[in-house]
């Protein structure tokens, strides 16, 4: 009886003390926004880390992949950039911004492979 009471009390404390279940999309959005802020300051490596975190939190969030692709492009990591752009387009094929970014990327990538 006593054990049950203790277990019940612990469970109650646990429920109250635990953070609210994280909404992956909101967390991913927060990471993406942080990334944008630091990218605007020219801190691209830092930005990349936030966007990498964002796609882990929500692998269905196309803007995170778009930004990740741009970050890789800025670092000269073309293969990773291509994969990220393709993933972003797979998730959101109608987004004109992503399409435009990808076209510009391809133009540079093709030039380097000439």
């Amino acid at each position: 009886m006593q054990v049950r009471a203790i277990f019940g009390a612990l469970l109650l404390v646990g429920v109250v003390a635990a953070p609210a279940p994280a909404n992956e999309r909101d967390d991913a959005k927060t990471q993406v926004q942080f990334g944008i802020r630091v990218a605007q300051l020219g801190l691209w490596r830092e930005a990349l880390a936030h966007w990498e975190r964002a796609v882990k939190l929500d692998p269905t969030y196309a803007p995170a992949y778009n930004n990740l692709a741009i970050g890789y492009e800025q670092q000269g990591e073309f293969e990773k950039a291509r994969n990220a752009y393709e993933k972003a387009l797979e998730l959101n094929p109608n987004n004109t911004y992503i399409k435009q970014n990808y076209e510009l990327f391809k133009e540079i990538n093709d030039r380097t492979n000439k």
Partner: protein
Amino acid sequence: MSVAAIIGAACTNYYELPIETPIKAKLDVGAFQRVLVAGFLAGGTDDVDGNLETTRLLRSQLRTKSELRVIDADVLPLMDVAASDRKADAGTPLPNPIKDDKDLDQYQHVFADAGYWKKVGEEYQQPLIVTGTVMFTSRAQTQMQQREQEVFDTLGRRRTVAERRLVERKGFGLTGRFVFIDGRTGATLHSQNFTESILYDANRQTPALSSYFELMDKLIPNFLATLSSQKIKGTRILLN
């Protein structure tokens, strides 16, 4: 576009940001401190001296856009070098001047003459040697052009109809290759082909030399990218 996509697009914030994409050099030139743009096998139209102009242009580009020290030297008479090689082989004389690609092909063996290039390298303290071929030729082409024509019917109503016609266009073509040779060994390190052309309205008079520079302008970024890392400036849209 689906409703979800419209809502999604409407909710997306975007930020346009400048980026600089780094492009690695295709050729590792770390072993060289100097570069000798030696000269080119050139042919085609007589209006432009492809050998001299290409050598001058590449030297000036390398002076400002690469870390290699550019050697100022007389342009090598590569046609003569190739011709004397052929004489030594007791072969048939080479065509002079070079009028087309077939003529040019007969001179190409000069780039494989490692002994000759090694000797050139020794003369200039073993630099990276840049050489190659340049064919600058005039071109003419008939193209189909479509334009809107304004017509009036019997009642005086205006309408437009598409009119297609053949137009004569004239211009120039620039083809060839850049050859990069190790001045220490005379061996070819890398070679890259190029081809560009430009056509104008037949009634436009464009001097050959300005067309040549217009075409070279298109080739230069790729040439420089072979020797040195570059950063390509652009903008991209970040999304949230």
